[in-house]
């Protein structure tokens, strides 16, 4: 019987040994994370440096950050299937895989983060529809299901699986109605990205985070969706670039990347304008009405100075936006990558301040700033998804036809 190769035809992959070593390295990091996860699950959250002032900490930041970065999947899907930017089909697979990794990581971190993981399903069963977190949980899990659905056909395209007639047809049929799934995903993403913004924005007991808004949605609801749409694709570009560097070959054509970068740039530019407006209104109206002056939030503690706002808005907001919306910026590879990295850092900083700095600020006048540094268990479990992502990407890249342009760009004779 003729054996079907596991590796897609017409592409070159590294040797088994090299691959194994690479996987072992990532696996070791993963195991470290798994050990920390085991400690947290069996000994409880006392393994962390969280406390009653830091109910949310590194993990929730990581959650918010990976979901924002995973936003590349929904927004690229939106552009590809709904707007009809066909060019992006050359990167959509990878965006979906990255999204899948980000969202599964987010769910895993949530499962570690909650004090009673075995009761975690209460969030669905006893759902409080007024809670932003409920909305997050539902949309997140639904969207994860959608991402899985989007990921499956790619898996089925593995030469070996493709030989199974049912899977072959399933892959084909799923591709055919992918727009329906993608549209659903966009709808879900809009809400959960927004709800994640709402998580801190609705907290009227937290003057640093509280924002006014429309109806039940604070401004952060829209800002989070917007920034995820802007910065998620940047993360896709960044990961693609890293993959290209590591595999030492070109995987996606420049025009595809540049189209995505251009759209991201404009999203980022508009986002940052909205963010500045929001910040100004908050600093001049919302916070003072609660008895806080703007600088109260950026002084009197060893970490959070005005620098972090400048970093978030100017260095990681305005600068990358300018780079990405200008043709010159996009076409110069190093500038493009700088812009992409800054955008990614920017959205992470934004999520950090909205969770960590929010909790650091003293609200009761006779309390002091609350400072926090994560325990190694928190760090390990936060790095765990990175190792996990590397493993999934490596496997996907090796065994699945992720990049439609790979063969064309890397002809094997």
């Amino acid at each position: 019987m003729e054996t079907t190769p596991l590796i897609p035809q017409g592409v070159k992959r590294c040797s088994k040994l090299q691959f194994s070593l690479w996987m072992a390295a990532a696996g070791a990091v993963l195991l470290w994370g798994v050990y920390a996860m085991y400690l947290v699950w069996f000994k409880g959250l006392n393994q962390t440096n969280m406390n009653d002032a830091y109910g949310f900490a590194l993990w929730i930041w990581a959650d918010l950050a990976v979901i924002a970065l995973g936003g590349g999947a929904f927004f690229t899907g939106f552009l590809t299937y709904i707007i009809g930017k066909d060019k992006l089909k050359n990167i959509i697979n990878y965006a979906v895989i990255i999204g899948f990794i980000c969202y599964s990581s987010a769910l895993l971190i949530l499962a570690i983060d909650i004090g009673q993981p075995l009761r975690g399903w209460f969030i669905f069963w006893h759902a409080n529809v007024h809670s932003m977190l409920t909305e997050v949980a539902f949309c997140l899990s639904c969207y994860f299901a959608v991402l899985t659905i989007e990921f499956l056909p790619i898996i089925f395209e593995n030469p070996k699986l493709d030989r199974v007639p049912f899977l072959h047809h399933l892959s084909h049929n799923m591709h055919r109605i992918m727009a329906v799934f993608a549209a659903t995903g966009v709808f879900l993403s809009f809400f959960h990205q927004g709800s994640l913004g709402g998580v801190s924005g609705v907290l009227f007991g937290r003057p640093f985070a509280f924002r006014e808004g429309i109806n039940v949605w604070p401004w952060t609801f829209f800002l989070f969706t917007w920034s995820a749409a802007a910065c998620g694709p940047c993360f896709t570009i960044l990961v693609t670039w890293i993959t290209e560097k590591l595999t030492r070959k070109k995987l996606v054509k420049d025009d595809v990347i540049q189209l995505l970068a251009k759209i991201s740039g404009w999203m980022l530019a508009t986002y940052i304008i909205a963010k500045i407006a929001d910040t100004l209104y908050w600093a001049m109206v919302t916070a003072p009405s609660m008895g806080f002056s703007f600088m109260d939030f950026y002084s009197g503690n060893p970490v959070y100075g005005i620098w972090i706002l400048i970093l978030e808005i100017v260095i990681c907001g305005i600068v990358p936006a300018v780079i990405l919306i200008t043709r010159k910026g996009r076409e110069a590879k190093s500038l493009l990558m700088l812009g992409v990295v800054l955008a990614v850092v920017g959205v992470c900083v934004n999520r950090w301040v909205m969770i960590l700095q929010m909790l650091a600020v003293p609200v009761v006048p006779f309390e002091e700033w609350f400072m926090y540094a994560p325990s190694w268990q928190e760090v390990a479990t936060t790095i765990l998804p990175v190792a996990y992502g590397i493993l999934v990407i490596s496997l996907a890249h090796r065994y699945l036809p992720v990049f439609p342009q790979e063969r064309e760009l890397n002809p094997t004779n």
Partner: protein
Amino acid sequence: MKEEHGDKHTKRYGMVIDLDKCTGCGACMVACYAENNVPFKKDETDKLDSLNWIRIFQLTNGKPYPDTEICYLPMPCQHCDGIGKHGHPPCVSVCPAIATDYDDSTGVVSQIPTRCFGCRYCMAACPYHARKFNWWDPVWPADTKKYLNPNVSTRMRGVVEKCTLCFHRYQQARDKAYLEGREEIYESEYQPACAQACPTNAITFGDLNNPDHAVFKLKNSPRAFRLLERLHTNPKVYYLSSKTWVRRAGDNYLENESRPKSNRQKIHS
């Protein structure tokens, strides 16, 4: 969803704590531990990892010796009515699993530890840090399990807990009144452990809506203020102090606001 506060049947249980009387003796804290089965660990000096349903803060006026003044401020859960007194305290609407709720008939913000799955969103929402998390498995060494109060369930690791205004005492009082064919619960029948224990009677407890209860009058005292009124959390815990610096320490003010605009927000009086 109760707006009518003249309505006799709508109770809003609350506290008035007279800071002029509080000497910081700690009886309220201990009474609370004993009544509510609050566990203890070897090291309780990290106050952010210490289960306290009521905690006494020491405030100082910051002036150098000998003009220094200090004031003790016991802080339980403030049982906020929330914006517009619609039963939406900062914590209740955020709980994804309805493990904490606002009881419309008493105004008590409840907490159901067996429902809570430990996401801690409510803790992030509460500006008072009144909510405490069970970071550890509770342990009762030697025979201390024997003193556990059967009216209050012990909490397991991984859930949030907080002051319930000794709601189990309310239930007992209500049952007793029912058996005796009464609709009203007497003021003295329902008192939380802290108010009962307080040796200086600094803590007065009762129905803020009931003109016959002591708290009704006290809350309108010119000495009265609440913590963080500007956030519109609308607490049902009032404080009394004759010292301006203490009243001012109850809220945040901008530099140009030389003195508190008003001690109480008179939206609903």
